């Protein structure tokens, strides 16, 4: 137990501290903690959209309904695959680029600024650019790939439920690798060069130095950034939905259930609860195994 000051001036200071933090605490509890609990509550109800009709308690019916819905399970596995692909992809690309940018070369500052563009540019702008380059027949990237005989120029890969998920994963990697790169580069630059010098004295080659010095030094950063990216991509809605409504991840399933066609917000709430529970489970395992806290 820490001891806290009790004198009147100190008492005043403590009260001031509480006053200053109060708006934050109120906003976060009212608009994040309360809704999170309310979401679980709603998941046991048939939620009515008409304020005059009260919600109807249905017990676990929403959960049984979802767990026996093949569309839910499809979305679930697509979400898991999407998260794995995008996290691994953006981590590898980010690491590679960070190592490249850690070297001095002509035009480095310009390239560094340019690399951040995908991350900084408003989502809606990048989405339209991507939709354009993937247009069937006319899209420049489609034409290029077709000229290499890598794909049939007539296929609409964005609006096809079978491929949409792949394009969306690529888009996510393209858009988010700069974040990974920035975090890794910052750590890379703080590795003392004496470590490398020592390794060189021992006759280590480039690969050996990378494996025995760089990677261990980066381990914690890589693990934490992967965790952040994993959380964000698991919940990712806008990037996926705006590029392709057919990508079929769980957040899209929830959004469509809650707000499109005939809304079933109780069912959406129970899907969100399941998503959250899975997320907490995965994070707990990850934190114990990988971050070793």
């Amino acid at each position, binding site marked *: 137990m820490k001891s806290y000051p009790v004198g009147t001036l100190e008492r005043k200071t403590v009260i001031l*501290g509480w006053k200053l*933090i109060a708006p934050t605490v109120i906003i976060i509890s009212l*608009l994040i903690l309360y809704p999170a609990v309310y*979401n679980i509550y709603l998941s046991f109800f048939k939620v009515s959209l008409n304020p005059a009709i009260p919600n109807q308690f249905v017990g676990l019916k929403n959960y049984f309904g979802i767990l026996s819905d093949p569309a839910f399970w499809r979305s679930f596995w697509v979400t898991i695959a999407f998260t794995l692909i995008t996290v691994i992809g953006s981590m590898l690309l980010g690491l590679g680029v960070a190592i490249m940018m850690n070297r001095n070369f002509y035009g480095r500052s310009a390239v560094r600024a340019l690399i951040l*563009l995908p991350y900084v540019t408003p989502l*809606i702008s990048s989405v339209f*650019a991507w939709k*354009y380059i993937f247009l069937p027949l006319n899209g420049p990237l489609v034409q290029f790939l077709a000229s290499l005989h890598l794909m049939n120029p007539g296929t609409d890969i964005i609006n096809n439920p079978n491929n949409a998920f792949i394009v969306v994963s690529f888009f996510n990697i393209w858009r988010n690798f700069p974040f990974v790169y920035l975090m890794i580069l910052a750590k890379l630059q703080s590795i003392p060069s004496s470590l490398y010098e020592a390794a060189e004295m021992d006759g280590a080659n480039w690969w050996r130095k990378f494996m025995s010095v760089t990677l261990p030094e980066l381990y914690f950063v890589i693990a934490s950034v992967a965790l952040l990216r994993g959380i964000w991509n698991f919940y990712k809605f806008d990037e996926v939905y705006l590029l392709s409504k057919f990508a079929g991840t769980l957040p899209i399933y929830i959004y469509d259930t809650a707000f499109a066609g005939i809304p079933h917000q109780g069912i959406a709430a129970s899907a969100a609860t399941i998503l959250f529970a899975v997320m907490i489970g995965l994070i707990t395992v990850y934190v114990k195994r990988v971050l070793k806290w």
Partner: protein
Amino acid sequence: MVRKRSVWKTASFYTLVGLLVIFVFYPFAWMLTISFRYNIDALKSGFFQKFTLNQYEELFGLKQSIRQKLSDEQKELYNLAQTLPKSQREAVLKKIYKEQRKSQFPFLTYFKNSLFLAGLAAFLSLIVSILGAYSFSRIRYPGRGTIQRGVLLVYLFGGTILMVPLYQIFAKIGMTSNPNLAMLSLLIIYMLQTLPVSLYMLGNYFRTIPYSIEEAAIIDGCTRVGAIWRIVVPLSLPAIVTVYIYAFMIGWNEYLFASIFIRPFPGYYTLPVGLSELFNSQHAIWAKMMAASVITAVPVVVLFMAMEKYLTAGFTAGGVKE
């Protein structure tokens, strides 16, 4: 590190850098070049086509698009109106203008709505988080650690989890029925979403300012709260601008809640909602969509490039949230 590199190694390194630049910039290059084309050239395959600023002029309302030009029927009405007495003439003209406005590409309206929402939400979040960050980086009191960790926990609750309950809460208190109240709900939600980043980044920065400066001000008769505004805030200006830009970007990009709350009120669409709706409508002309995308991107990219040094430091200082 001095090392001899063969020409071959250097060349392959630069090739790699070149490939990276192409990978990053490819979609933007097309976006730019299409935005300077005429409508009929929008889908042609060469990179350069006939250059025009038409799309931009139309978006900014400097030039009327074909759709906006008066239809024959409207022209007749217009000529007829000239012969009518003044009071009737005004009524007819009003009707014509109203119909004309309907067929406009309301880009500037979307732009204003986004600017208003993102700008104000970032500002409000900045005020709340300056106070909050000061509190937990400078003042010791019971419960401080819990609050600090609690703020981080917010990362676990994405919009995906909160969309249904937040909509239900705002609908219950009647904030979804009227466009102004819907905008207010959005303002509150954007402020909420930007709060954790702002708190975290500012808290980290405040810890680097020596307390003795504040102490001196307090000894000179400044109150503690006065010291925040007169000493801490001016000294943290780079961090504050960084946090503001970052929070602004979050609001400028937000789609999920905007699409839920303002869907019924087209006049209140923000850029992401408006443009994605337009994409599915009669206005979806690629050249214009691309010009709109460029204009949407420019303010943010310019802000970012101007502040790049501070912003990248801010990202890596740890406080980041999407």
